[in-house]
């Protein structure tokens, strides 16, 4: 054996070697004998293979104080109150770190896990059934929002706001679309990275990737939700939203929402990587404007032959001749016609100076063809304008104006390029201005100064009303400013008044406003400081309430020994204001410190509540809106939520069973599924199979996909573009869709054969234009119409019953490929090449009983029920389920529990009558002259006799003697 003592671990160990080593270390023969006995198991185990020589010596030899053996872990974990599915995983993990455990640590770990589990258990009386019941998805129960509703997305680190319909339509035009009943679904290929802001359980916003999108026609009504902060969202009424309940963030169906419920709106939108600079060429194309760098390339052939300039090669010569009057500098953009002044850099840095200017433009700016004009009388404001103009070397002119009621002052900067740039990015006119899209992706400094410029121009502060306000005739602008504010963690309220759109920021954000934005105008600076000094203690903010606090306040109050009546109000109404919560958190903290009680966990929960990235906005109105057009939906990984353009967070799908991430297959869960199993339904409402693959098919994704196409059922109607009967030549014409044929790997030949196989005198031929002509001799027009229908429903490929097949990988990146199907056909998939039948399973119990036998069915019943229960978070011991399964299968067939099966099979009349259909049972019994033997429990209870169990099972007799 090659083994060095201590420190070095080798893979080569022999038993003799280890024994010897141990013998040397302990030097006691008796002990050695005992130890080597125990070594047997160890040496065969994995530990040895991993080469943990040190371990073995330590384990087998000196047992250090309190070190844990494998058996101990087993025992302790089994004893603890942790559900089975966690137990197994826990045991594995504990085994791996066994070396570092001792009794104390082990106990601490087990207690911690048990506690965490108990905390997350479903509380008795929580309507688990209802959430589960709604998950009987007909796959068409889409939860979606209409075309024009804007959403926030991030592509390549650039934030964009666009209508969901536009976004999804574009995706569907580019990538592959699948049709499931009435819905079109597009899975995003893995190389396309689109992210959306998503809300996690801690109330924080995370950017999560988009997995797929869908659209469908929606004939029913839409609901129109208005919140107190002035935000709106329109969605189908079974679109799922998100609410806060019992300190958890849960999905809820739109149907269940009512006024006073609170839905999350983004208060703080984080961004890791921000945009630093802007390429002007993205907005002003190079073939319409002069780019110095391009001219340089044109003049110097050494720099390359391809260049883009707004003139042709002949005119270029002219320009060069006039080079003394016209200078185009490298790195700058010039207008086509007039050169000289008014150039701007080809690459604009997104620095605070530019940000401020854009803000100023948005508030008080206007453009003419050659100049940008910003009006303001404040000297601080004006000097900043001048600074900006100078930084870009722009000419500017100033003069007073008497347009409005008071004296105004204009500052105009001359630059054709700048004008065009502003028009294209920020719009113009009082109704047309908007926040430029790139602003959302820039850093806080840029945004802060943009907002500063804007509020310095259009904003006003009212200390009496305790708000900072701004208004505009452009709704888009106000929405944009609100979203920008959320980038720096300020929440604004919106309202509409007589054609003007208003935005107001509560004084509670004044401090933050001062820090991140600030003002230049001295008057506003002063008022802002005053606003900051207002104490938030005395008032209560209707909007900034945290709902769904559960019993946490009450529990905490009790723990620190404060009377619960202090917090009863909040617990009863299930909401508490943010500042109030802060106050109470501090109070509890102090009490706990004084009394030496540990409330760190509860405080952590409060911290989390206070640091949420969202405001729970109260719904004030829900109306029904007229339907029309298509509705869209997104499927987001992990957290499954995304946000609208106004920052309202919405959930994508309501508890559809996500197979490894994509909500593509719908399976009945929860209570309805249990009912199905117990009722021994011949066909479950969502039959599904999990087919494991063999060899090459399991390793290679393409092969797996191939197999999926093979077994997916395809009918002519899925691949046809049109089918009709032609009177002229008395035949049926079918034209097929090339794309579909290719996608499903079907050859036209196959189709031809299948059609010909319909009947012996059917003859198919292909015309020049690719259409198929089906001829049957001696058929009347009516019969041809019938034939047309038959052909339409003819199956071309695949196994009857399998609707859809999806290839999924076992673990994230590793593991074998397997096939999940919608639809079940156990017998038929057996012979297919690539299918590993011994590991294939289905959720159709009747099928299993038929194909694999009654014992297999019994096991399937147990598995199905245990899985469903565990999935719902209910901890039911397997024995109860085993009992049911045994009772159902004891006679060799799968019997249901109800009156058609077990209960109805009873011999006793009274028992059956007591179960269901009382009168019928009694009548029939009377008619047939049945006898009641009073053997069972129910009938004895009915007549009032002792039951024939326990004490009742005994017959007493008198004893002779005495």
């Amino acid at each position, binding site marked *: 054996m090659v083994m060095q003592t201590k420190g070095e671990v080798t893979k080569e160990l022999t038993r003799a070697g280890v024994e010897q080593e141990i013998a040397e270390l302990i030097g006691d023969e008796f002990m050695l004998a005992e130890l080597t006995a125990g070594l047997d198991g160890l040496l065969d185990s994995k530990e040895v293979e991993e080469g943990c020589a040190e371990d073995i010596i330590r384990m087998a030899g000196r047992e250090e104080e309190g070190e844990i053996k494998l058996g101990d872990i087993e025992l302790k974990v089994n004893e603890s109150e942790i559900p089975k599915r966690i137990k197994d995983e826990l045991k594995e993990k504990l085994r791996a770190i066994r070396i570092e455990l001792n009794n104390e640590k082990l106990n601490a770990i087990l207690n911690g896990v048990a506690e965490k589990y108990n905390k997350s258990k479903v509380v008795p009386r929580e309507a688990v059934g209802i959430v589960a019941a709604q998950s009987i998805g007909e796959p068409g129960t889409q939860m979606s929002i209409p075309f024009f509703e804007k959403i926030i997305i991030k592509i390549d680190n650039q934030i964009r706001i666009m209508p969901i319909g536009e976004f999804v339509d574009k995706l569907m035009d580019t990538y592959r679309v699948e049709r499931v009943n009435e819905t079109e679904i597009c899975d995003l290929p893995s190389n396309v990275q689109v992210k959306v802001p998503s809300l996690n359980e801690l109330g924080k916003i995370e950017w999560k990737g988009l997995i797929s999108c869908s659209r469908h026609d929606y004939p029913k009504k839409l609901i129109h939700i208005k919140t107190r902060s002035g935000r709106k969202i329109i969605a189908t009424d079974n679109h799922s939203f998100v609410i806060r309940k019992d300190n958890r963030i849960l999905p809820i169906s739109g149907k269940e929402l009512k006024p006073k419920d609170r839905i999350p709106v983004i208060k703080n939108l984080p961004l890791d990587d921000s945009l630093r600079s802007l390429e002007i060429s993205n907005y002003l194309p190079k073939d319409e404007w002069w780019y110095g760098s391009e001219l340089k390339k044109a003049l110097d052939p050494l720099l390359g032959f391809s260049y883009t300039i707004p003139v042709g090669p002949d005119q270029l010569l002219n320009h060069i001749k006039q080079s003394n009057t016209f200078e185009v500098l490298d790195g700058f953009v010039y207008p086509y016609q007039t050169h000289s002044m008014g150039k701007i850099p080809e690459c604009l840095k997104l620095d605070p100076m530019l940000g401020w200017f854009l803000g100023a433009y948005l508030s008080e700016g206007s453009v003419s063809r050659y100049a940008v004009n910003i009006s303001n009388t404040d000297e601080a404001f004006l000097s900043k304008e001048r600074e900006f103009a100078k930084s870009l070397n722009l000419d500017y002119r100033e003069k007073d104006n008497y347009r409005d009621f008071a004296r105004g002052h204009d500052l105009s900067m001359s630059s054709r390029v700048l004008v065009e740039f502003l028009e294209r990015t920020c719009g113009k006119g009082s109704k047309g201005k908007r926040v430029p899209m790139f602003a959302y992706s820039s850093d806080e400094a840029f945004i802060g100064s943009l907002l500063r410029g804007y509020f310095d121009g259009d904003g006003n502060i009212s200390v009496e009303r305790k708000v900072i306000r701004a208004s505009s005739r452009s709704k888009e602008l106000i929405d944009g400013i609100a979203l920008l504010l959320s980038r720096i963690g300020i929440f604004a309220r919106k309202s509409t008044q007589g054609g003007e759109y208003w935005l107001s920021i509560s004084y509670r954000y004044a401090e933050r406003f001062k820090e991140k934005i600030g003002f230049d105008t001295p008057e506003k600076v002063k008022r802002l400081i005053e606003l900051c000094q207002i104490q938030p203690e005395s008032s209560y903010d209707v909007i900034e309430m945290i709902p769904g606090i559960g019993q946490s306040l009450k529990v905490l109050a009790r723990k620190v020994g404060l009377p619960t009546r202090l917090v009863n109000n909040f617990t009863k109404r299930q909401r508490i204001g943010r500042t109030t919560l802060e106050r109470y958190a501090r109070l509890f903290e102090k009490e706990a410190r004084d009394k030496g009680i540990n409330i760190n966990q509860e405080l952590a929960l409060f911290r989390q509540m206070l640091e949420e990235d969202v405001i729970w906005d109260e719904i004030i109105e829900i109306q029904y809106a007229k339907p029309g057009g298509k509705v869209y939906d997104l499927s987001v990984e992990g957290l499954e939520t995304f946000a609208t353009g106004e920052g309202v967070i919405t959930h994508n799908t309501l508890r559809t069973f996500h197979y490894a991430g994509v909500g593509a297959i719908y399976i009945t869960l929860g209570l309805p599924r249990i009912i199905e199993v117990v009722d021994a339904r011949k066909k479950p409402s969502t039959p599904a199979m999990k087919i494991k693959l063999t060899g090459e098919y399991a390793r290679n994704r393409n092969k797996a996909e191939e197999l999926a196409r093979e077994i997916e059922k395809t009918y002519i109607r899925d691949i046809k573009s049109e089918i009709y009967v032609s009177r002229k030549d008395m035949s049926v014409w079918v034209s097929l869709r090339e794309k579909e044929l290719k996608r499903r790997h079907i050859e036209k030949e196959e189709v031809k054969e299948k059609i010909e196989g319909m009947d012996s005198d059917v003859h198919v031929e292909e015309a020049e234009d690719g259409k198929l002509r089906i001829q049957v001799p001696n058929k009347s027009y009516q019969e041809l119409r019938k034939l047309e229908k038959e052909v339409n429903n003819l199956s071309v490929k695949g196994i009857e019953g399998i609707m859809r097949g999806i290839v999924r990988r076992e673990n994230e990146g590793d593991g074998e490929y397997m096939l999940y199907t919608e639809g079940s056909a156990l017998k038929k998939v057996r012979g297919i090449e690539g299918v590993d039948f011994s590991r294939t399973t289905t959720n159709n119990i009747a099928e299993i009983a038929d194909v694999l036998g009654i014992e297999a069915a019994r096991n399937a019943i147990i598995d199905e029920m245990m899985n469903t229960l565990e999935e719902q978070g209910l901890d039911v011991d397997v024995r109860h389920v085993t009992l049911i399964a045994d009772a159902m299968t004891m006679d060799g067939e799968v019997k249901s529990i109800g009156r058609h099966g077990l209960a109805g099979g009873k011999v006793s009349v009274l028992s059956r009558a007591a179960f269901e259909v009382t009168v019928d049972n009694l009548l029939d019994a009377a008619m047939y002259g049945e006898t009641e033997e009073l053997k069972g429990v129910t009938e004895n209870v009915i007549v009032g006799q002792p039951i024939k169990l326990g*004490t009742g*099972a*005994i*017959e*007493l*007799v*008198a*004893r002779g003697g005495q």
Partner: protein
Amino acid sequence: MTEKRDKYTKYEKARIIGARALQIAAGAPVLIRTEEIDPIEIAMEEFESGNIPITVKRKK
């Protein structure tokens, strides 16, 4: 008909004592000397001392 002698199940014991207690409560003569006054207690003492004239008939 076989009588059980060795060990009674808890149900049998309960049944026997119960039946005997009923008899005692209805005025039957008590078969042992005892200080007890509660019929059930008396029946239990009788049972302990093996003095109850009731036994179990095992079903075939």
